[in-house]
């Protein structure tokens, strides 16, 4: 009677198929374990999993993005892992993202690292005869250059940023923002944040930023502008590494594009790291089997194949150090883009690296995106928004006490 | 097993009392006809007996058992609704057999009964139709059929033949009479047709505004109506009535006819149209001018007006050669006369 291990998995691209193949191999080699891969919508992870976890049920393993806030539910696998040292060595930097503050548990690993960053439509720039800003160019320079392209090519907008608090956090930090207060609780919105946010609002008012993403939604709704970029509607798009495969598929050879990392602010040129983690769940009946599955999935060849086939950035220190990953894509734009993101992940500010392991990050993001888009829609002034963001966050913190 | 007794039955609809204390005993196997003007409460009374309405006060007994609080399904009666109330989604056959199936009767028996009813009602070739595909008279026959297939202890029939032609009506009447004889079932029958009432009834109940005016056998009712209302209501066309003063045991009618009456003071003299005939040359008669002559073929109805302006109706056999505007003297046999006092009650 094989031991069942259920994995709750969501997919942004083809990773569901890849992992399923990888697991088939595992099952073939380990007939005593029956791995059940449950492909679900991200909504399930976001909304249903917390309910299950709260009542002490759930799958054995799950692919999760909200890692820190739910860390109490993850299983410390150390007693069951074949070689905890391997884990510490290769995934050590990010173990903190997925365990409770002060703990040194090993609860899982990042299946995918993400890094926010910009994409440019090289062809549009070329056609407009506008030179690409240099590597150290600021946000202002990038937007100015994009504006020129927009005007020259008759485009509806110069750039777009995904509608997400996470996405604007890198730029905020680059302008000196700090979210984390001295007590570890959220700090009030500071001048750094306001510096970038007021720019963003201004750009939106000038019609430089595509209104369809930020203005035309309310609350914390996530909106991406990838399709607009893929269609050549905008020359510059700020999103993240996970878009590479998607853009490659949608753009095909319609134009040339490149990843450019993050433009600079006053204190740095930081993007935001992030990603999805595969974690074991405390309520499992079969921790040993779970650990065996996790050991397999975290093993170097598996991580390597997974990354190569999904075009995801690996979180495995050994693989990153080796630098010999051969991403399987026929699109000539893809390898350089991924390279650029790998490079960008070394350019992040320390504040950016602290945020994924910070419990209140999502709260902060949510408040930012909700209120800023109201400012853009003319419903609030920037000052009102600042007050309200602080209040929203304070409410949330108060509720959690 | 089908005696029915009503004791002090009253019924109001939202404050309006339409039945004012009815007392009536109907013997087992009796055929009682309810007659009365439209809206007098005949259907309501039937529905009370059926158990479809609850009386506001009073008791209903069937076979000596108080059933006032019993539901319709438990009283074991069958009813023909004035509005038919056929099941629109069932064929005629299903309409007929529904009640039998409820009694868990064997299929063969049901089929036999339905066939028999269909024959009796001449609806044999309509059995697979639905009510919407029937003519008015056909629907009415199905409604009758639904009641009779059940062979219940008592039937309640609310104007069951009103939409049938004379010939069919005659046949149906005979069939119902035969059924009544055969089953010995109690029947309560509401009708507006005087012929039906006269020929079918063991007793006729004359209702008026929710009260019983008279209960008696048909001929008694015809020959000795208890009051002016019954006198006017039974018999068609209605009885001619003359208001006059009796003095010293005699009363005088228009045309100077002078009659002995066993009363004094204001009286009403009644004479049925059928009892009037053109006066012979040496006979005394009420002179009248003809306003309308209705030839019905076998008889002719003369509508006249007396010299004192009172209407006068006479029915003459055959097709006499009379015309509108003609003056006529109409005579009658004093023995046929009915006499009522000022309060409308019969005298003698």
């Amino acid at each position, binding site marked *: 009677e094989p031991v069942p291990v259920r994995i709750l998995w969501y997919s942004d691209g083809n990773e569901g198929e890849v992992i399923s193949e990888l697991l088939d191999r595992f099952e073939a080699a380990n007939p005593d374990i029956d791995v059940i891969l449950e492909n679900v919508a991200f909504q399930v992870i*976001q*909304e249903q999993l*917390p*309910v299950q976890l*709260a*009542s002490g049920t759930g799958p054995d393993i799950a692919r999760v993005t*909200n890692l820190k*806030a739910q860390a109490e539910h993850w299983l410390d696998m150390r007693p069951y892992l074949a070689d905890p040292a391997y884990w510490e060595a290769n995934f050590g930097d990010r173990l903190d993202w997925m365990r409770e503050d002060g703990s040194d548990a090993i609860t899982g690993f990042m299946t995918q690292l993400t890094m926010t960053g910009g994409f440019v439509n090289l062809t549009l720039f070329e056609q407009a005869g506008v030179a690409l800003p240099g590597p150290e160019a600021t946000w202002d320079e990038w937007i100015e250059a994009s504006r020129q392209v927009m005007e020259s090519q008759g485009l*509806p907008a110069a750039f777009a940023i995904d509608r997400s*608090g996470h996405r604007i956090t890198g730029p905020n930090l680059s302008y000196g923002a700090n979210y984390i207060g001295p007590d570890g609780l959220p700090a009030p919105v500071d001048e750094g944040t306001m510096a970038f946010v007021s720019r963003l609002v201004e750009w939106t008012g000038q019609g430089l930023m595509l*209104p*369809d993403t930020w*203005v*035309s*939604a*309310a*609350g*914390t*709704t996530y*909106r991406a502008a990838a399709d607009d970029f893929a269609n050549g*509607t905008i020359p510059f798009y700020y999103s993240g590494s996970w878009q590479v495969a998607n853009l490659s598929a949608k753009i095909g050879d319609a134009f040339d594009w490149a990843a450019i990392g993050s433009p600079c602010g006053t204190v740095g040129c930081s993007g935001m790291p992030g990603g999805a983690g595969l974690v074991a769940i405390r309520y499992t009946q079969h921790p040993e089997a779970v650990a065996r599955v996790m050991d397999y999935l975290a093993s170097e060849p598996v991580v390597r194949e997974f990354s190569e086939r999904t075009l995801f950035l690996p979180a495995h220190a050994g693989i990153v150090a080796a630098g010999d990953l051969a991403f399987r894509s026929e699109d000539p734009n893809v390898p350089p883009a991924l390279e650029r993101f790998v490079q960008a992940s070394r350019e992040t500010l320390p504040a950016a690296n602290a945020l994924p392991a910070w419990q209140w990050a*999502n*709260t902060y*993001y*949510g*408040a930012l995106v*909700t209120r800023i*888009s*109201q400012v*853009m*829609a*003319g*419903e*609030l002034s920037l000052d*009102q928004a600042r007050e*309200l963001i602080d209040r*929203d966050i304070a*409410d*949330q913190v108060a*509720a*959690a*006490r | 097993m089908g005696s029915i007794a009503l004791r002090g039955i009253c019924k109001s609809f939202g404050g309006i009392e339409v039945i004012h204390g009815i007392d009536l005993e109907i013997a087992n196997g009796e055929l009682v006809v309810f007659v009365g003007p439209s809206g007098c409460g005949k259907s309501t009374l039937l529905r009370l007996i059926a158990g479809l309405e609850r009386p506001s006060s009073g008791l209903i007994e069937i076979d000596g058992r108080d059933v006032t609080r019993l*539901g319709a399904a438990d009283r074991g009666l069958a009813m023909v609704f004035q509005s038919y109330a056929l099941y629109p989604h069932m064929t005629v056959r299903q309409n007929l057999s529904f009640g039998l199936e409820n009694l868990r009767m064997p299929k063969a028996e049901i089929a036999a009964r339905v066939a028999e009813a269909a024959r009796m009602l001449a609806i044999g070739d309509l059995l697979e139709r639905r009510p919407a595909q029937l003519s008015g008279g056909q629907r009415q026959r199905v409604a009758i059929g639904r009641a009779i297939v059940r062979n219940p202890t008592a039937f309640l029939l609310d104007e069951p033949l009103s939409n049938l032609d004379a010939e069919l009506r005659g046949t149906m009447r005979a069939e119902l009479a035969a059924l009544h004889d055969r089953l010995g079932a109690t029947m309560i029958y509401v009708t507006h047709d005087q012929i039906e009432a006269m020929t079918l009834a063991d007793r006729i109940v004359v209702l008026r505004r929710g009260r019983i005016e008279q209960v008696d056998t048909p001929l008694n009712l015809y020959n000795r109506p208890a009051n002016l209302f019954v006198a006017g209501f039974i018999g068609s066309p209605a009885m001619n009535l003359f208001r006059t003063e009796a003095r010293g045991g005699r009363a005088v009618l228009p045309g100077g006819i002078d009659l002995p009456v066993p009363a004094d003071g204001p009286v009403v003299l009644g004479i049925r149209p059928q009892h009037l005939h053109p006066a012979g040359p040496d006979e005394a008669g009420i002179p009248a001018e003809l306003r309308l002559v209705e030839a019905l073929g076998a008889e002719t109805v003369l509508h006249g007006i007396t010299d004192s302006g009172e209407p006068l109706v006479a029915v003459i056999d055959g097709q006499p050669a009379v015309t509108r505007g003609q003056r006529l003297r109409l005579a009658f046999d004093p023995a046929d006369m009915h006499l009522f006092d000022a309060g409308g009650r019969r005298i003698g």
Partner: protein
Amino acid sequence: MLPFVLAARVLEPVLALWQRRTGHAGMIAVFLIPNMTIFGIFVIVPLVLNLLYSFTGGAEILLEQRPWVGMQQYERLLDCQNHLQPMTCREDQFWRAVHNTARFVLSQVALMVTVSMITALILNRRIAGRGLWRAVFFFPVLLSPVVVGLIWRWILQREGLLNLIVVRLGGDPVIWLNDRFWAFAAAVGVSTWAHMGFYTLILLAGLQAIPRDLYEAAEMDATPPSRVFWRITLPLLGPNLAVVLVLALIRAVQIFDEAYVLTGGGPGTATMFMTQYIYEVGFASFLRNPGLAAAASILMGGLLVVLTLIQLALSRRAERMRQR
């Protein structure tokens, strides 16, 4: 169906016996109990739990882990200097949602009832291919709200199908969903589009139940079409119309998925409705506060009960009018 028919056969004598022993009251119980039991367990109990949630605070999900805060959540929601001015409210988003929902409900219910009534009337006529037409108008009901929102987003977006047509016709393209008015209109229109088949079908069934001979009588009375509608069809449709009104109202208040996908609540908060607010507060993990969401839903429910009561009172009057 067969097992049910067989069950009914078997049940019949049992129930007949039961009826004999307990009378109508017993049968009423038999008819009500199955539904009421399930209803009680799966609707009433969760509702009561939801009420309890609204008196608790914190971010925990399970009721037993949540601290009791009494009326705090309600106080927070209702704390306003001027209820007509969301910005003066403690929970400005909630009040924006309330205002938007009120406007939405008024316009959508009116549009929905009108459109589905007209469609039902037409489908009720003797037209060729009735089944086909019905299917056509019912079709969108089959689509999941997400797909509905998506299709229309594609139609209404910057270079969507509609602008393609507008430009073809020589007009200037409009960015429909970035315009407060058009986005709201789109939410109203699309939700009507998606659900009108539902109400049309209810009305159609109701129309079919009106006896034909009344229409014949009206025709003999040389009644103009509009009067037939107002004086005969509408009153006789009363009970079924009440269903449509109540359901349309309730569903309008509950509008969520398709509007969420279509407009995301924007531009700004122009199309953010109460359920989106409740959803964001209750589920979107960023700003989760289940107690506040429960309180908001209880307030919303209270509002609906009042509206429904008014409607039912009206339809009760109509019902009395036609009692036989």
